[in-house]
């Protein structure tokens, strides 16, 4: 028995006998020039100069308000952009808008006026694949240096070609305007890429007027380590699984592995034994706690200052989680524990000892959380710094495709564990945490309360595992040695990672390696909201907002 939501290969038939694809095709009328079937959703083929019309219609008339991902790829005879649309209210209702463009003139209309998140996604598509987007406000490279030659995920890219990157001082983007006015008061500040408050190698190009941020541009790509290319070079069965651990590397490894496992299992039609699903659920939630702990610690670090008590406390609790995870998987951070069809090994022996360890941790957690609440959330200084700063209204968050604690901190009740349930989540008793303050404080609070919910889930999993009959401990399904999904099957699946919706698009080409492997990183979309939250605000509030977004550059840049 599998508890994965089973999506059959056939288009979902509605009661009337008309499929969802037909319904949407009728809505769009002449805009649709062809149909495709993806495993997760119907695909509508749209002419490249009518993208905005089609997306506006789907957004306003059919309610598809969430542009989850934009996948670009090159075929032998064409380029293709796929817009994966879904709804914040109903995650299982999905549609893929497929926009093919010709080889010699790869120009396609930009979706940026419809969904603001398309801005970065299309820049990435241009950078890595080489599709041009008409109407795009700022189409330049996003991950690679400006001087880069060629588009590395295109088919004819020569990887041995020498590349040159220069390091120039960045010019003040507002300087000219102010020169015209005569007295320039603005100052240009590079924050990062080496800076303690940027949580890794993020570069924030900031223009400040006194203490206020006038203009802000997040420059990413300092950790673009070709994750998609790596995954396209690996075989489905074993060679891809180690990489997800390194996307969101803040101990969220199992959550990321699950994203790949879920996608590939649906692609190859593999059922996961129930027992393995419970282990997965427990491991994933432990990872979520570890991940939120560091978010908490570093946020306090950003807002309070140096390596103070809260950071150390958070690290202390993380160490405990990491020890448990090490017992379970054999690794502190890069677990490589999931396999397609299950997990690699059973719980460590003696099991009682392991359960006791987990229970001890869960028993100590309420007290630890109370400590955090005493020191953080009820602290006046922190409240002064976070309440009412970095405001992100829900409509804006939706337009930018923000998910995870960032969306839930803005009052959007959206959690894939519940809305598009997988694993064992729908069998357990837990709640989705939503705060509607829309500010830095709410996002912090969401994370802290999610730790409690995760603890609840782990508690239930441990109870289940403890009583599981010994002869039914089936940790892996039978999976063929070599997986070769059929040619031209396409699938986009997401899970709730620590930072939000972590999606993967795979197109199979009949071999044992994916033809296209696209990662939809939650941080990538979440980070896009930073200018929205910070422009016009004070610069320390910008740092607080950045901390509350809890980005991981490994996942932003991939």
């Amino acid at each position, binding site marked *: 028995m599998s508890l994965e939501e089973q999506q059959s290969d056939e288009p979902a038939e509605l009661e009337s006998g008309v499929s969802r694809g037909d319904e949407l095709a009728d809505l769009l009328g002449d805009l649709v020039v062809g149909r495709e079937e993806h495993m997760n959703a119907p695909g509508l083929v749209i002419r490249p100069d009518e993208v905005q019309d089609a997306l506006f219609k789907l957004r306003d008339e059919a309610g598809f308000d969430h542009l989850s991902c934009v996948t670009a790829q090159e075929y032998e005879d064409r380029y293709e952009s796929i817009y994966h649309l879904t709804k914040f209210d109903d995650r299982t209702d999905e549609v893929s808008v497929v926009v093919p463009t010709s080889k010699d003139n790869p120009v396609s209309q930009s979706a940026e006026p419809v969904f603001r998140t398309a801005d970065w996604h299309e820049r990435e598509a241009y950078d890595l694949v080489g599709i041009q987007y008409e109407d795009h406000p700022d189409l330049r490279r996003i991950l690679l240096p400006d001087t880069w030659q060629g588009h590395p995920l295109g088919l004819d890219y020569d990887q041995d070609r020498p590349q040159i990157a220069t390091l120039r001082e960045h010019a003040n983007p507002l300087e000219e305007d102010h020169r015209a006015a005569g007295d320039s008061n603005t100052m240009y500040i590079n924050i990062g890429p080496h800076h303690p408050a940027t949580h890794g190698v993020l570069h924030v190009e900031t223009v400040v007027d006194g203490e206020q941020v006038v203009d802000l541009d997040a420059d990413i790509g300092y950790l673009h380590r070709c*994750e998609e*290319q*790596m995954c396209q070079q690996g075989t489905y069965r074993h060679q891809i699984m180690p990489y997800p651990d390194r996307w969101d590397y803040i101990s969220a490894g199992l959550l990321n592995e699950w994203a790949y496992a879920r996608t590939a299992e649906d692609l190859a039609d593999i059922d996961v034994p129930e027992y393995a699903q419970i282990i997965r659920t427990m491991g994933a939630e432990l990872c979520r706690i570890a991940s939120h702990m560091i978010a908490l610690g570093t946020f306090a670090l950003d807002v309070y200052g140096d390596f103070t008590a809260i950071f150390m406390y958070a690290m202390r609790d993380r160490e405990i989680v990491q020890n448990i995870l090490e017992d379970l998987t054999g690794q502190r951070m890069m677990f490589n524990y999931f396999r397609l069809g299950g997990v690699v090994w059973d719980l460590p022996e003696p099991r009682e000892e392991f359960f006791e360890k987990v229970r001890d941790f869960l028993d100590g957690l309420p007290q630890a959380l109370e400590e955090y609440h005493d020191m953080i959330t009820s602290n006046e200084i922190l409240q002064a710094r976070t309440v009412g700063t970095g405001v992100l209204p829900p409509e804006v968050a939706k337009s930018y495709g923000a998910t995870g604690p960032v969306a839930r901190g803005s009052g959007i009740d959206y959690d894939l564990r519940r809305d598009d349930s997988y694993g064992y989540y729908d069998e357990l008793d837990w709640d989705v945490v939503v705060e509607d303050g829309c500010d830095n404080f709410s996002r912090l609070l969401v994370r802290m309360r999610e730790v409690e919910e995760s603890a609840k889930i782990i508690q239930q999993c441990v109870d289940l595992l403890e009583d599981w009959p010994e002869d039914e401990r089936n940790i892996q399904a039978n999976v063929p040695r070599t997986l070769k999904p059929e040619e031209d099957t396409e699938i986009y699946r997401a899970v709730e990672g620590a930072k939000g919706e972590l999606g993967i698009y795979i197109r199979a080409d009949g071999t044992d390696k994916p033809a296209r492997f696209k990662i939809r990183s939650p941080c990538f979309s979440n980070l896009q909201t930073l200018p929205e939250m910070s422009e016009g605000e004070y610069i320390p509030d910008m740092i607080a907002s950045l901390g509350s977004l809890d980005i991981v550059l490994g996942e932003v840049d991939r």
Partner: protein
Amino acid sequence: MSSEQKPFVTDDTQVQTETRDARMAGADDRFNSKLREAFGSSPFILTKFDKFMNWVRGSSMFMLQFGIACCSIEMMHTYAIKHDLDRFAAGVPRASPRQADVIIVPGTIVSKFAPRMKRVYDQMPEPKFVVGMGSCTISGGPFQEGYNVIKGAEEVIPVDIHIPGCPPRPEALIYGIAKLQERIANGESSPVTVKPYELEQFGDLESDEIVDKLAAQIDEDDLVMRYNWADSP
């Protein structure tokens, strides 16, 4: 402890005698260390200044607070409680490169970041030391085949200690740093030559229109990184 030696203390200096007596009587345990036993009652240690400076350098290292990728999380754990790198006189992270002695390179270096890392390294005062943490700083690690990944930190800055692992455990990092301290205390200094850095004439690159064009555009004072993937290890 031999009270007969009294090499430097004369009786007509009352204060010194009192001090000596206090030390010998064990009034304060601080004075009765192993070192004191070795040197007798002399308040002086004779050594070479170089040797002394090496000892000082090895015993008080300021780390640059420098996070790149996955390894930086383990690095944070090394700084934080439980592992507490500061126990070994090597754990005060400094946010500014101008105050740091050691840079731990914790993660994958990609083409966009390499010139920045080089600049940060250049900003550190001499003598400076580099600890390469993790497989990525050795060879590019799991991402070695990537189109954008620098195949090891040695391509950009000289590395004193390589710590293998993906990521190395905090214990491994502590061991690596202890080894570095040992090396510094023994007076070994780091090499300062760097392989491919700063403006080159691009003469050894395959002649390519774009390379020529870019080379012509580059200002003499501009800092340039060149990536010749084919020749990388």
